[in-house]
């Protein structure tokens, strides 16, 4: 069709200008699609972190920070849970397993490398219910041996029987925990797990309650809250549903933020298309007047200019779509690598269908934004008075 030919030829006539407008759309589509893909990958990765908490209730000492004010001086106060508190929790939890633990850190040295490592001290009989075993055996009560997390073992090439410097003593590794990833309760993969008798007399830092039937979570949580916080607020009780809710809210906020950035860049791109089209209409006034005088209808002139912005949108969106497939892939891989460092389970990137979905959405927005940007200039062109347009020099 001659109107499409004219639109494309006009874009070619001003190649530099057209390419610059195109680059705007390409960047907009890349921003929208790849940020969408990145957001989806992030939420998948974070989703992996919380996927194993559906049966967990976490009880922590109440601190002012949990009320949301980081400047409250009480935030800095050390707080802990006593044996009495644990007993109350156990009473409230009924048949469900209650696992109190101390979380601290200690100097660690293996071969030439040294540093601080997270230490979880638990009751010996609680350890198997929280951690799976990869090799060796679980630490026995009052034994000098320790269990190490799988990633720590990999990094320092530790095996059952290896010796490590742990605080001021030299201890033997008796077991290696299976890789578990980060949960809301503990993150054992880079930690050392010992029995609590090493810290005898110390209060606990938190209590994990494993609920057998996840339908009971609300009930158990209410019972603990009622039992321990009866007189004053001593503990914060968090269940996995709340954690999931926080996770979903965070994920939505991240997605909206990233898509917002994409949308803004696309809006900037459509302004540049609007600019190019207004210039194009101004330059071609005489041509428009001529076309109208020899028989082109208003809607044909309108359509010709819309073809021009559509061509920019389609070319920019296709280029942007291909580019965002690459950028999105690498961005997701980078996110995965970053979160992989925290032991997040899950694949390297969002699934193909999700990626394709975001790219198609990005491209669709690119095309729609271009056509919308072309509407006003095209309408101006179509409503030009042919006589005045013909007089234009």
């Amino acid at each position, binding site marked *: 069709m001659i109107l499409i030919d004219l639109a494309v030829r006009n874009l070619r006539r001003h190649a530099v200008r057209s390419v610059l407008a195109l680059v705007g759309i390409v960047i907009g589509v890349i921003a929208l699609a790849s940020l969408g893909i990145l957001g989806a990958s992030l939420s998948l990765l974070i989703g992996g972190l919380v996927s194993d908490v559906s049966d967990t209730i976490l009880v922590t000492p109440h601190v002012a920070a949990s009320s949301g004010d980081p400047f409250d001086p009480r935030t800095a106060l050390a707080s802990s849970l006593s044996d009495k508190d644990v007993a109350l929790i156990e009473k409230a939890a009924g048949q469900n397993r209650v696992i109190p633990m101390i979380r601290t850190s200690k100097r660690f040295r293996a071969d030439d490398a040294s540093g601080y490592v997270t230490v979880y001290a638990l009751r010996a009989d609680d350890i198997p219910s929280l951690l799976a075993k990869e090799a060796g055996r679980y630490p026995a009560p009052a034994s000098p041996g320790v269990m190490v997390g799988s990633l720590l073992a990999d990094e320092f090439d530790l095996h059952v029987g290896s010796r490590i410097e742990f605080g001021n003593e030299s201890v033997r590794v008796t077991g290696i925990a299976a890789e578990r990833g980060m949960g809301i309760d503990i993150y054992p993969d880079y930690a050392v797990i010992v029995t609590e008798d090493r810290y005898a007399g110390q209060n606990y830092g938190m209590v994990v309650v494993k609920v057998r039937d996840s339908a009971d979570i609300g009930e158990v949580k209410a019972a603990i809250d009622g039992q321990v916080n009866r007189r004053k607020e001593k503990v914060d009780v968090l269940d996995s549903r709340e954690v999931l809710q926080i996770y979903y809210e965070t994920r939505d906020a991240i997605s909206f933020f990233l898509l917002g950035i994409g949308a803004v860049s696309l809006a900037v791109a459509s302004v540049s298309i609007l600019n190019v089209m207004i210039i194009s209409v101004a330059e071609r006034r005489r041509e428009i007047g001529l076309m109208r005088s020899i028989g*082109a209808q208003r809607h044909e002139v309108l359509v010709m200019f819309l073809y021009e912005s559509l061509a920019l949108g389609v070319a920019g969106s296709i280029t942007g779509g291909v580019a965002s497939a690459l950028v999105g892939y690498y961005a997701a891989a980078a996110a995965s690598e970053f979160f992989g460092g925290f032991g997040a389970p899950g694949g390297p990137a969002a699934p193909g269908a999700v990626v394709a979905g975001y790219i198609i959405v990005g491209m669709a927005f690119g095309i729609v934004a271009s056509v919308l940007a072309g509407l006003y200039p095209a309408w101006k062109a179509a409503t030009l008075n042919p006589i005045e347009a013909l007089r234009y020099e």
Partner: protein
Amino acid sequence: MNGEPIIRFEDVSKVYSLPAGAVVALDHVSLTVDAGEFIAVMGPSGSGKSTLLNMMGCLDVPTSGKIYLSGKEISGMSDDDLTRLRRDHIGFIFQQFNLIPLLSAVENVEFPVILTAGREESRRRATEVLRAMHLDDALFSHKPGELSGGEQQRVAIARALANDPDLLLCDEPTGNLDTKTGTAIMDLLAAENRRGKTIVMVTHDPRVAGYARRRIQIVDGRLV
């Protein structure tokens, strides 16, 4: 043709409202153009010649009075109807040639045809009229910028004739051409008139006006 005059102006006036005051471009003009006539409209600059031609070409509407084309009154017509009328019944030829620079010679001629007919039919008709205008086939694919003034005006006449209109409206068709080329162009127009086309031509040049069979003088918007 239905025996009606091809153009009839009844007491037509055109007033432009400008910030400096109203300008009367046409002042109670009445005239008739019969089918097959060749008319030269002459007059000084600003006398209203172009306004008259624009009204005949349905590009402008009168402030008062009535215009009939082949018996049909045009003042009540919509923009789309007027555009269709221009496309199917009127051919325009301009002093500046006014070819579309992005299109080749043959595509320029095709343009008004292709809006209604298929590509093959438009190409066939465009080729036919370009040959009738004695344009070398080798120049068909040239862009307007690659053609001489005379060649461009031949293409412009071919475009005006492509839809086989009843009426040709020419605004200084030789104004940008040398004498020899101008004569060749006028010979082509005269031949079209002999074939039955009605021609109304605005010109300053008495020699060019000599091709017409009737002359209309216009001064200050009035026929004299």
